[in-house]
């Protein structure tokens, strides 16, 4: 059934777009994009004189095939989920936050400082929220700067967030290198409180992998973001501003206030992401720990189509590629995975509208 707009004699169609159509449109295009990426991967592998089947088998074994590899995928997916959610939250308001990298680092730094300041033996139930708040506030402060500059002076958020990355990362480097580091290293001392339990503590098979409780936090944050965007009035306003600023303004929504809120909270989400590394993995802040996860969040948001749950899936997928690159290093350079990531992003950007159009065309033909 389709929703035909007929001015005259239209039969009332009470249902919206049926869920099956929506599911098809949500799932089939990414799969086509994946297929395209796989074919490109085949060609790359063949160019190294290797068998694609063998390399892909190795990739799967190294990622989903054993508990350690799977744990590493989950660990990497956790950080990407946070940065991806941060980018998509901004994009829902029509704002492009490229500052995930520095917001993530600032969040991790604040979490580490808080963990250091708390007395030894603070129960996790108390230490985790405090560290999270600190991380969120730090990320939010970094995010609020471009938000303020945009609302007050109309400065473009893309430029400001990019430039702020350099400023914030350099500042953090100065703090660490100049004041807070353990001698001979570029990291802080180990935190006293707020260490998150790892997956390995519950299931010994995950031994050695860094996956930790932050994963659960990421899923919770995704749910909160979903609820805010699609159920709360604030989300109604935020999406309205993202879709049509003049209409939002007409509807009594303060566009500047929404921008402020969206970029600040985008920073908060990215900042909280810092706990994955600091509280869950190393238990200290180390200079440069973000290592591109902030930027990869843009790709994650794009592939996840700015939907919180889509972002979770995309984060898992990109983490698999990244971990898989290590597993197949013996056969092909792990940079192949970087190339493949690029191919996936391009394929999603191009294939999704194309395939969607073909799907709708096919449906129309069956209707007629």
């Amino acid at each position, binding site marked *: 059934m389709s929703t035909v*707009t007929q001015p005259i004699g239209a039969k009332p169609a009470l249902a919206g777009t049926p869920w099956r159509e929506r599911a098809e449109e949500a799932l089939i295009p990414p799969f086509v994009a994946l297929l395209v990426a796989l074919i490109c991967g085949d060609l790359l592998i063949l160019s190294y004189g290797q068998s694609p089947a063998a390399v892909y088998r190795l990739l799967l074994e190294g990622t989903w095939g054993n508990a350690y590899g799977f744990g590493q995928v989950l660990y990497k997916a956790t950080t990407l989920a946070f940065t991806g959610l941060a980018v998509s939250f901004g994009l829902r308001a029509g704002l492009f936050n490229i500052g995930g990298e520095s917001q993530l680092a600032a969040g991790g730094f604040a979490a580490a400082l808080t963990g250091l300041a708390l007395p030894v033996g603070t129960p996790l139930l108390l230490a985790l929220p405090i560290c999270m708040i600190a991380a969120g506030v730090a990320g939010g402060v970094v995010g609020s700067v471009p938000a303020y500059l945009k609302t007050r002076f109309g400065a473009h958020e893309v430029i400001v967030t990019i430039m702020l990355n350099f400023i914030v990362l350099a500042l953090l480097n100065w703090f660490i290198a100049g004041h807070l580091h353990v001698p001979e290293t570029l990291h802080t001392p180990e935190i006293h409180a707020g260490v998150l339990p790892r997956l390995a503590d519950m299931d010994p098979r995950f031994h050695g992998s860094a996956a930790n409780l932050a994963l659960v936090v990421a899923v919770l944050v995704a749910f909160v973001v979903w609820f805010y965007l699609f159920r709360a009035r604030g989300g109604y306003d935020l999406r309205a501003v993202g879709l*049509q600023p003049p209409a939002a*303004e*007409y509807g009594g929504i303060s566009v500047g206030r929404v921008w402020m809120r969206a970029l600040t909270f985008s920073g908060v989400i990215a900042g909280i992401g810092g706990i994955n590394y600091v509280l869950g993995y190393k238990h200290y802040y180390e200079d440069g720990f973000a290592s591109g996860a902030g930027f990869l969040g843009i790709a994650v948001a794009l592939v996840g189509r700015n939907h919180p749950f889509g972002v979770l899936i995309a984060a898992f997928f990109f983490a698999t590629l990244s971990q898989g690159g290590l597993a197949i290093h013996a056969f092909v350079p792990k940079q192949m995975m970087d190339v493949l990531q690029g191919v996936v992003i391009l394929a999603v950007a191009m294939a999704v509208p194309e395939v969607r159009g073909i799907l709708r065309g096919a449906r129309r033909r069956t209707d007629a």
Partner: protein
Amino acid sequence: MNREAGSGTGETGNQSGFPASAALPTPPAPASRFPLPASQFPAIRMLDIDKSFGAIRANRGATLEVIPGEIHALVGENGAGKSTLMRILGGLMKPDAGRVEVNGRDVTGWSTSEAIAAGVGIVHQHFMLVPTLTVAENLVLGCEPKTRGVVLDYPRAAGDVRALSNETGLVIAPERLISDLSVGEAQRVEILKVLFRGAKLLVLDEPTAVLSPPEVRELWTVLRRLRDKGDTIVLITHRLDEVVDLSDTITVMRAGQTVARIKTSQTTPAEIARLMVGREVSLSAGRRVQPIERATPAQPSRGLEVRDLSVVGSRGIRVIDDVSFSVKPGEILGIAGVEGNGQTELVEALAGLRPVVAGTILIDGDEVTHRSVAQRHDVGLSHIPEDRHRRGLILEYTVANNLILGVQKHFSDHGIIDRDRVMENALSEISSFDIRPPNPALAARALSGGNQQKVVVAREMGRSFSVLLASQPTRGVDVGAIEFIHKQLLDARSQGKAILLVSAELNEVLALADRIAVMYRGKFAVVMPASEASEEVLGEYMIGTKKGTAA
């Protein structure tokens, strides 16, 4: 599809092998005041055209036949498929099925350049002119006469343009900059541009939407002259008076299909309206509605009051210059005027969407001059914006979500949207305003223009308010919906609402308003009771030839 035939030189005649006299399915053989030329071929013949966009079928077996040398009106409700049909004719789109013939030649699925080469010219609703160039430069754009192959031969271009201008009666100085022209003059340039390319078959899409009455009359003279010269003209319009005035033959479309083809001399506006909508329609426009008797004198503090209002436009000029007026409860103040004389800015300033430089605005006695949009809502302001696609609707949102835009806080508890109440509200508004299709989960984008406007009107009139700003409330809306929206406005007036009606449609202002103000260059040229106003009287104030004092 017969692409080869379409790319021929234009004089090849009927290559398709179909007999040119093949009878049209519905209408009988058309009679025209003008004899058919020797070729015996209709200028345009479109048969069984199908065209779909996504789930929407814009044309379903639509048919159009136009005799050479006639003015043919193509009428129909919004979304009836008129513009789609013309885009197919102009080569902007390819039909899914059906045949297109021009002068007997099968040209189905041709390109825009082939259409131009064959003398088909489309004058679009929106101007496509380069504002920083002169009239002559715009006209020769793409086929410039050059000296030594490099430099634009400006004198020759200007000469060519002047010759064409004199020949057609579309008088305009070739040296003038487009940015200095009025809308009416810009429209003349658009038509000249098409003629300059050698068009013999003109399609005009809603040409009068932005013109003042004298400009409209001028345009009619030009079109009649072109027809008498042997050109063929297809006129797309919503306004039935224009159709009856000007056309020789009328084709009526409804829901993507051609429902009738009639000789203008044998029909009436009421019949055309009935054919368009598919039921009887009362044409309130043009018929004066009696003002209601007010038993109690209006309290001076109620309604909308504006004192010495000045507003600065985007280019730093005063677009509203010291305007004062009031609208009392139970009164409709109509604002007429050629577009671009400050009406948009006035409404935006009243709605809180544009800062006020000087003056005060009072709603029911509350001063709101510098208050936010949301605060004005709270004191009882409702606003039907002139541009539903930009302001009035969030096109990607569902109908249900659009029906709470601006009142979303009344549909949420503790910041959470109450989805049951949103849905309940949507279903009740959909049924009381007859929004079609009646599906609250559909994106607003998927509705036809008239139904989109009903969503806006339903939302703004469905909530409690005391002052309504109705800006172009029926723009681009079909007769059935116009009748409905007019009735809503009159009902609101009898319930004691103060209504400011801004409309480019003089008929609408004349039919609905109790008092009429004419805006000219940011000021009220005149304010008069509707009983003293007529199209002729207002028209002179609109173009600035007559200046009066605000009463």
